[in-house]
């Protein structure tokens, strides 16, 4: 039974990536060959920076389908215009003009259903690339890069997830920040979501937004407090009052922040950070094993 963990946060810069790559490294060492990390932040993919030793395969292009109107068949009936909810089609019968504006098109396929003259065909258009790789120590790492200026984040994430599904029994998704559609796409099928937060007013406000979203989606989640000690206890108390699981706390360490900055996250970790990490990683490791165990006993 595959297990999927998504690492998310409402606010950016809380330490999502730091945690995701640490979790990945830990699990891929304790369960070699069974773990993959998927960087779902397709606007700003960063996870690969921390694994310079990773070997990447050739980039795969991701396409979406954009309709094209065959003017020789078009009768300028404007039915596609009527069907298109995104105002992406311009048809001007008087001058016999019909065109699709691909920047507004959502690739929903409604115009094709609308067209009775078989005048609309779909053509692939590149929206980004997927990069897959593996670490010499085992473990697969992949991610997507959206073309700059494209607004197809959600589709890019869905395509990325489709492309890598089933590559490993345990998957870690590093979600983009925020609470909008792309985040939903990244966490939609996760078995556990870890919200990374920081104990500052901004961190807490954004965490509440994420919690609202996850409750609406009825997803199991827990909260990881990063940079603890930097702000106040308010966040702890809030989680306690709300009955939300605290996955763990990682103390703020200026030295560790400096290490992240240079792209080094794994060597010479300050002791207090290393200790907090190992406790949390152990806990999650046990939980994954338990999940597998549960499944076996069901059989």
């Amino acid at each position, binding site marked *: 039974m595959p297990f999927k963990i998504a690492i998310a946060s*409402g*606010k*950016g*810069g*809380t330490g999502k*990536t730091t945690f995701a790559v640490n979790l990945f490294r830990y699990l891929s060492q304790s369960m070699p060959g069974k773990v993959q990390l998927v960087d779902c932040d397709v*606007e*700003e993919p*960063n996870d690969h*920076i921390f694994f310079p030793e990773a070997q990447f395969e050739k980039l795969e292009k991701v396409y979406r389908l954009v309709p094209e109107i065959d003017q020789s068949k078009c009768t300028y009936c404007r039915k596609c215009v009527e*069907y298109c*909810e*995104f105002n992406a089609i311009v048809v001007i019968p008087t001058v016999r003009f019909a065109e699709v504006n691909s920047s507004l098109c*959502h*690739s*929903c*396929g*409604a115009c094709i*259903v*609308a067209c009775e003259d078989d005048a609309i065909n779909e053509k692939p258009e590149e929206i980004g690339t997927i990069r897959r790789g593996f670490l010499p120590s085992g473990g697969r790492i992949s991610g997507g890069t*959206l073309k*700059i*200026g*494209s*607004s197809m*984040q*959600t589709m890019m994430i*869905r395509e990325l997830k489709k492309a890598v599904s089933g590559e490993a029994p345990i998957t870690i998704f590093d979600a*983009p*920040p*925020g*609470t*909008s*559609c*792309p*985040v*939903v*796409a990244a966490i*939609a099928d996760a078995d556990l979501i870890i919200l990374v937060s920081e104990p*500052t*007013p*901004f961190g807490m*406000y*954004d965490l509440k*937004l*994420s919690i*609202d*979203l996850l409750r*609406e*989606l009825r997803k199991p989640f827990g909260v990881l407090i990063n940079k603890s000690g*930097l*702000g*106040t206890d308010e966040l702890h108390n809030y989680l306690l009052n709300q009955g939300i699981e605290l996955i763990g706390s990682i103390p703020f360490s*200026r030295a560790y*922040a*400096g290490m*992240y*900055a*240079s*792209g080094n996250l794994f060597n010479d970790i300050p002791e207090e950070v290393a200790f907090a990490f190992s406790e949390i990683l152990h806990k999650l490791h046990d939980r994954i094993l338990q999940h597998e165990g549960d499944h076996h006993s069901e059989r």
Partner: protein
Amino acid sequence: MIEYYSMKEITILSGKGGTGKTSVTAAFASIAEHAIFCDGDVDAPDLHLILAPEIKETHPFPGGRKASINPELCTDCGLCRDYCRFDAIHQDISGRYYIHPVQCEGCRLCERICPVGAISSEQSMNNFWFVSDTRFGKLVHANMQAGEENSGKLVTTVRNHARELAKAEGYRFIITDGPPGIGCPAIASITGSKAVLMIVEPTRSGMHDAIRLAELVKGFNIPIFSIINKYDVNEEVAAEIESWLHSDNIILLGKIPFNEVVVKAMIEKKSVIEFDPDSELSYILRSSWTKLVSELENGQ
């Protein structure tokens, strides 16, 4: 392009989240004269936590359409699921079909192909935008339901209103706290701006994202300025960023050291300049603002 000769809109962006955009915006808000503020991060707005707005006007913002299936009419034929390209239509355990509102893109195709007319859609009305008073001046901001699409248009709405207010009341500056990333909301916050201020942190990922952001902004032909935040967290990377900025002709307004005073100010709901006006940080922020203003006035 419309030009309001006296008014300048500055959008503060970062690419990567958590680099200190909102803290810088708040600091500028506390010293800028004749300015109006705008929170362009409608997804996870934070500026109001510092500015403590008193809401004066509330406006609904019609969101995207969301389809739903009327279970009484539905015959469970499953046609809608075959047509839906957004994987938004699912079956529950008893085999009945339902549409997940968060995954629904609002294209209405299911509604049109349903043979028994069981699907209908409605515009979501849970998003609002506000005009508020703060101790520094007016703030235009918004609140978007989680999982909503189309935040780009809400950003545009908020900015347009700020611009109208600025024009009507003769403000000199609009300071916009932009959304993270380089996607649709970020583009919506750049379009029509007079300048972009990029807050970069000296990390590998921060630099990577800043380069992508700069590439995006260049397409708009808008001048880019930058501030390196927490530069002393890694001076090696900071130096690398500095030389990239230099080679890309991006003006560096200031380098801000790491200081816990930023978090302390945040907890007190104050901008850094209000919280500790004599600190080194406040000095750097003030001089960055002055430099930015003079660059903009002379650049015309």
